[in-house]
């Protein structure tokens, strides 16, 4: 698995298009949110800004890059090449997504830490981390699943739009309007409960019972995403 991850990291660092998508765009978007944090905090709250930062990086740096990478490797038959070796499917897939996942995790750690330094620290760091990690796990698995219906890196620009924009929209909807209205609907949407957890963890005031309750749909979405990935991912291009 590690030789594959190392080669994948080399490829990411040498591919300018992927570098721009996975590094520069999320960084630029994050800088925008942090720079105008008071405006966005006025619309929602600081917790909302933190949640949007996590979802922006999870959507663009992790999800889109995962789909683009896997579709490209399958289109070029690199996946078939790797499967001609003694490496198992799990090791191949883990090796392929490990670099983009680590890059995204480092990005989110640096950006959220920067936000905490300039905007104030979260009330419950552990809960925030749990919600962020669950969001990353969900987006990674959804990326693997979406790669199954994506024929090429170019096609990924289309196939990733619904979920990347959709999850950020859900995060914004929940973060700005709260869950006083339509609470059930908002919590069962992908990223809805995770957003509420992050907002509550950052702003404070979330009771333990409520947090545990929100962890259920958050974890359920991780399971759903993994199921989708297992059912939809394909190793071979369609004939």
């Amino acid at each position, binding site marked *: 698995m590690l*030789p*594959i991850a190392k*080669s994948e990291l*080399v*490829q990411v660092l*040498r*591919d300018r298009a992927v570098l721009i998508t996975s590094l520069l765009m999320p960084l630029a978007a994050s800088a925008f949110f942090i720079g105008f944090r008071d405006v966005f905090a006025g619309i929602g709250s600081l917790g909302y800004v933190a949640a949007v930062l996590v979802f922006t990086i999870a959507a663009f740096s992790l999800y889109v890059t995962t789909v683009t990478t896997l579709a490209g*490797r399958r289109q*070029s*038959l*690199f*996946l*078939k*090449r*790797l*499967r*001609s*070796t*003694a*490496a*198992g499917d799990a090791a191949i897939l883990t090796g392929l997504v490990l670099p983009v996942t680590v890059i995204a995790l480092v990005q989110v750690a640096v950006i959220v830490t920067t936000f905490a330094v300039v905007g104030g620290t979260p009330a419950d760091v552990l809960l925030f981390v749990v919600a962020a990690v669950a969001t990353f796990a969900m987006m990674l698995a959804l990326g693997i699943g979406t790669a199954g219906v994506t024929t090429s890196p170019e096609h990924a620009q289309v196939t990733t739009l619904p979920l990347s924009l959709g999850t950020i929209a859900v995060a914004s909807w929940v973060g700005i309007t709260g869950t006083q209205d339509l609470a059930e609907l908002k919590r069962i949407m992908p990223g809805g409960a995770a957003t509420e957890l992050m907002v509550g963890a950052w702003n404070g005031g979330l009771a333990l019972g409520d947090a545990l309750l929100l962890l259920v749909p958050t974890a359920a979405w991780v399971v759903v995403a993994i199921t989708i990935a297992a059912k939809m991912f394909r190793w*071979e291009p369609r*004939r």
Partner: protein
Amino acid sequence: MATNPVIDVDRLGVTYGTFQAVQDLSFQVERGELYALLGTNGAGKTSTLEVVEGHRTATTGSVRVLGAAPTDRRAVRPRTGTMLQESGFAPELTVAETVRLIGRLSGREDSAERVLGLVGLTRKAETRVAQLSGGEKRRLDFATAVYGRPELLFLDEPTTGLDIRSRDALWETVEQLRADGTTIVLTTHYLEEAQQHADRVGLMHGGTLQREGTVAELTRSLPASIRFSLPPGAATPPRQAVPLEDRSWAIETFELQRDLKQLLDWAAASKVELDGLSAAPTRLDDVFRAVGTDPAVPAPR
């Protein structure tokens, strides 16, 4: 029947939806043998090869490779080298990085420098794969396949896109591997390569194996051909000659030497010059064509 086959395919069937690509296919490949699996377009040889290589599971029947299921990668792949029909390399990696990666994942020990030297890519070691020509990619593919001297080597269209010098070098390496006891499965559209190098040939058509045997056995089943033209007003040639067009004649024969001598004797006695005289033994191409046109054989789907 092979006694201890490296590859044992028994009544293999491969189905895509309602389409049956391969049906009731059985063959064995023995240790140290070069077996050429040939076929018309859509014959099912790619599906067969994918199952044998472990990239696809059989719908029906069974396949054993080196005594294990071909999908058992840990058991089979460290002993197997595969040259895919299409290269499938990461364009951003260099040639040396590619060989090291695939070599390490193969589970065999070797040095990238050795195999790159073997295929004449030493000077391209630090070049990115994206900058290689099509022929160089095929050589890189071959280098990764022979990394660590595998017991079993799959060569899927190995010389497509190679210039004649690279082809010769590749076959020289293949012959060295054979001399060391490597078992080789070859698919190719260059029938002369199969004719020259294969110990046995399996000829597929319509999803089944239509002919199998050594080149000599296969070609023996079809007549050799003598062709010539006669000048206007010439005497009628020996009775086995069949008229074609434009004063051309053909003799199809299983006794090439005898009938050629008879024709030459007749021409000498008749004082006739045989224009464009050619005598060709039966080649694998002829067997291949006969499979496609034999009314007893189903037409390609």
